[in-house]
């Protein structure tokens, strides 16, 4: 087996042991102890995973230039001056809000926005960002901290927790279909489960897949006496078995449903999503699909020499927008749109300042986008601060694991303890899926009903200073407190009457040891909580 296995297993068992062994007070200040792992509302999510929920991951390989995808109109002057040779003309930007817009070629995405089917999370990266494509891709795929070499994948660990022992005993009545499918010749690290087994299968076209597999006989059981050869043979036989078993069900699903919307041609992303739509509508119980589009490493000629609205990046964004829009229209026509959420990500964004080759070098934080009927529309976070940079790069607003935690919790209904295991720690969530989609979200409902929202803590994890954001839609007596993980009061940040408006309370953690803290917002008799991780 892999040389990395022992380390990984020991770390996992360590997590399993500690989460069970540490005794916490049952209640403090009226808050159940579970609050330490995330919002109190998570407790209400302790429902079995819905099996018809589908997550489509769209990987934009190469490092998508976030600043030319989601354009900060409110900071247009700074934006324009730092990247004058590639800046998109202000009046061409498609507005999401007065402050923020998207690239002019993303007309389809803009339509989805106006139909309230799009969400943008700003400034997503992780602490100590790595500028290597390969390392940063691994970090995103594995869902681990940048200083940890994790050989399993975040979605693979989630699926493995739902389908233990996979692939032994699979397919079965509960899961007759592949758990995850990657529309590519190889399966990515994101789908690797706890035992380093891939939870997904790779295929490019159901028809060809079926034809080529159908001639294979069931593999034998004999093994040679040498260890490495025997392990390799076992691996190949497992691939053979999976191909055999799944080729029939996949073909049947693909045959059952035909696309009801015309997809753009010469669009590598649309080619993949087109098949995904058929497989979902055809009844596969597959939970996760991974599709990819490469070419985002735009060091040079990102924009055309004569027109910054043209060039490599514009072509790519147009493909993304047209492919995702066609996919959305198709699944709507096929009647499965309520079951599908699409999420885009890339290994990093790009340097704020452009280079003189009409391109941009590797950067850090960038927006992630969500599409779909169940998506909570809106923009999470603020336009990036281009005046306060880290070596020319944007600072983090959200840790990508917060977004993963949000998806696992709000879309798949994963329990918070499971999410903590899967992501190797607790991460506060943001609202990317509409309330009521997975289960009743009483605290969020209460907040909305009472005209105030505890929005976010960013960055989180925090190294030096966190910004705690909340919105009041009416005047309130507000109190904002911080507690440590044993329930001891650390600080009161706000205690006063505040007018309606958007608030951002800074909080320096310089005197605090690393660990999980809880931030509590109290308004009149109501409370909301978010976890804050201090990592130094």
């Amino acid at each position, binding site marked *: *087996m*892999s*040389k990395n*296995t022992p380390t990984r297993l020991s770390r996992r068992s360590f997590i399993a042991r500690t989460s069970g062994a540490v005794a916490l007070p049952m209640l403090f200040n009226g808050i159940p102890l579970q609050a330490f792992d995330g919002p109190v509302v998570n407790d209400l999510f302790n429902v079995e995973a819905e099996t018809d929920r589908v997550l489509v991951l769209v990987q934009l*390989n190469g490092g998508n230039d976030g600043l030319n995808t989601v354009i900060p109109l409110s900071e247009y002057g700074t934006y324009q001056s730092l990247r004058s040779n590639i800046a998109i003309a202000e009046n061409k930007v498609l507005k999401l809000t007065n402050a923020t817009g998207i690239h002019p070629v993303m007309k389809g995405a803009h339509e989805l926005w106006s139909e309230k089917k799009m969400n943008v999370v700003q400034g997503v990266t992780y602490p*100590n960002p790595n*500028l*290597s*494509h*390969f*390392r940063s891709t691994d970090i995103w795929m594995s869902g681990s901290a*940048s*200083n940890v*070499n994790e*050989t399993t994948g975040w979605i693979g660990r989630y699926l493995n927790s739902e389908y233990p022992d996979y692939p032994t005993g699979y397919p079965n009545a509960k899961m007759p279909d592949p758990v995850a499918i990657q529309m*590519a*010749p*190889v*399966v990515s690290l994101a789908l690797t489960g706890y035992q*380093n087994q891939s939870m997904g*299968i*790779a*295929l*490019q076209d159901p028809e060809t*897949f079926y034809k*080529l*597999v159908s*001639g*294979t*006989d069931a*593999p*034998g059981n*004999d*093994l*040679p006496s*040498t*260890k*490495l*050869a*025997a392990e*390799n*043979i*076992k*691996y*190949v*036989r497992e*691939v*053979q078995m*999976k*191909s055999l078993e799944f*080729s029939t069900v996949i073909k049947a699903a693909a045959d059952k449903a035909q696309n009801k919307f015309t997809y753009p041609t010469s669009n590598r992303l649309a080619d993949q999503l087109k098949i995904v739509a058929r497989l979902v509508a055809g009844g596969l119980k597959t939970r996760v699909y991974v599709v990819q589009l490469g070419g985002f490493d735009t*060091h*040079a000629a990102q924009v055309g020499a004569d027109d910054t609205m043209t060039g490599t990046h514009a072509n790519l964004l147009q493909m993304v927008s047209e492919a995702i829009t066609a996919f959305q229209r198709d699944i709507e026509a096929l009647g499965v749109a309520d079951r599908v959420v699409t999420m885009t990500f890339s290994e990093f964004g790009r340097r704020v300042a452009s*280079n*003189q*080759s009409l*391109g941009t*070098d*590797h950067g850090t934080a960038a927006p992630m986008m969500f599409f779909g009927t169940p998506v909570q529309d809106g923009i999470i976070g603020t336009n990036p601060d281009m005046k306060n940079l880290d*070596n020319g790069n944007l600072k983090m607003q959200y840790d990508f694991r917060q977004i993963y935690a949000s998806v696992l919790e709000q879309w798949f209904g994963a329990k918070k303890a499971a999410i903590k295991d899967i992501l190797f720690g607790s991460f506060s969530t943001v609202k990317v899926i509409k309330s009521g989609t997975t289960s009743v979200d009483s605290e969020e409902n209460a907040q909305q009903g009472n005209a105030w929202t505890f929005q976010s803590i960013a960055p989180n994890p925090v190294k030096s200073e966190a910004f705690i954001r909340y919105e009041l839609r009416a005047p309130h007596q507000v109190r904002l407190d911080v507690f440590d993980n044993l329930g001891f009061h650390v600080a009161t940040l706000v205690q006063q009457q505040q007018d309606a408006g958007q608030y951002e309370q800074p909080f320096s953690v310089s005197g605090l040891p690393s660990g999980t803290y809880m931030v509590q917002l109290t308004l009149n008799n109501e409370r909301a909580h978010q976890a804050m991780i201090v990592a130094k």
Partner: protein
Amino acid sequence: MAMLDPYRGQWTRREAAHLMRRACFGVTLDQLDKAVADGVDKTIDTLFKSVPTPEPPLNPADNSKWIPDPGQVFTKTVVLSDRNDPSTSTAYDLTKGSGYYNGITKVWWTMHMMTHAPSIQEKLTLFWSNHFATEMSVVQNGIFSWELLTYMRANAFGSFKGLARRVTLDAAMLRYLNGNVNTKGSPNENYGRELQELFTIGKGPEVSQGDYTTYTEQDVRAAARVLTGWREFGGRDLVLAANDRDYRDNEPRTAPLFPDNPNVVFVVANHDTTDKQFSLRYGNRVIKGRSTPQGAIQELDEMLDMIFEQNATSEFIVKELYIWFVNSDITDEVRQNVIEPLAKDLRTNGWNVGPVLKKLFASEHFFDVNLRGCQLRSPADLVLGLGRAFPSWSLITDKTLVGRYFQGFTTALASQQMDLVEPSSVAGYEAYYQAPDYYRMWLTTATLPLRNGFTDALLTNNTALGRKPIVDTVAFVGKLSSPEDSLGMIEQINEIMFAAPFVESTVMMLAEEILMNGGRYYEWAMLWNAYKADPSTANFNAVRTPLDRLFRYLFRMAEYQLG
């Protein structure tokens, strides 16, 4: 016994086949038996000799020459008087585009890899094209990519440091990693980063932000600045190519500075002449900024000296060679007893890769029974290996079908995810770096069926061969000793074509359930003897059908995927 001691164990078809699979994809039965007769030392000597390279390919459309003679700049012969009028060119038909010419290169290379006499040279050339990775579809110049490949082949056994220097100033690489637009005031870090991360010293763990143990982000920026000003000659944009100014920014530029590398020029105004400060990882070295072309070359050489002075550089490349040719699992024992001693050899012998690899291939460690089958066959091992083991191309009578024959193999490589000079990224094919799966990356539910489709097709009638199969099972089995003995025949096939021995029950299963389709194993002798006594069509078909069934099954076995 030290792991690098010369191998003195048994030397049969099994050991020779292991060596040949790893060194040159595979060999015919005759070549294998010659290796057995020659002994291990002589066989390895032979493997480490260069083989002659065939003539460069012509343009098949009209049999015209499109690759310039060594040292010639094709642009000189095709300077366009009108940028928008490709008809003014003759030697390199611009209307066909780089994809067309790259396609010719790929088929030509496939042919050479399948037909050359046993030598490690081509598998090593493939290693270099993966190590110093470029993608033809990004470079978009058939001549640049051809010339880089030709240089790698000619210097495959030679100096790693020499290769690194040449690749740094290579026209295809300058395009691929944006060296062309790396200028003073706007350094482009792409090549400066990959030079260190992937090509020479390798990236260690990130111990603090931007510090990768072996080098830092500061070194990436400093390296980019050292390399400012270098450009390729102009490729397809030829308007000002004969001029002394660069067409991209109209700055004065030099004539080509290297006789054997004529497509590279230097734009003085774009070179950063300030001093370059490297980090503590390189002992806080400062490379003095210079302003002449010769000065820029000196800066580059000082930087390469600085990188190559670090032991990490020799260890990094030896590790990559080891993963390519031996095993992906580098234990502490292997590191101490194989990697580090070979890295030291490399540093002290003038960076020559040939002798280092030869020592590795001749070692006890290479032939360790426990390491047999630790690799899975790459598409090249599978596709080219079978192509080499069954060289039916020699039977093609209609010469116009030769290209089509080899193109089938080129296409098979591409569909199985080993498109030549088209790795998925600058890191090369994933199977050689993606832990923990490594070689397993080649084999997925998508690619395994494609492999099955490929091997099945080898047993069907091929148009280019006048409707004969590429793998003639009857002829092959006829060369074995006592082919009428089905169990012995299967044992021999296993020894020649499989990395790990079959257990006894597998041999019996293959003889009875597959070959004899449910009959008894000894019934095969009657069929074979009848055919030998009277090779009539009926008797031929009576042996061909079971043998084709057997080989089709063998090629689809999990065991066959081991390399």
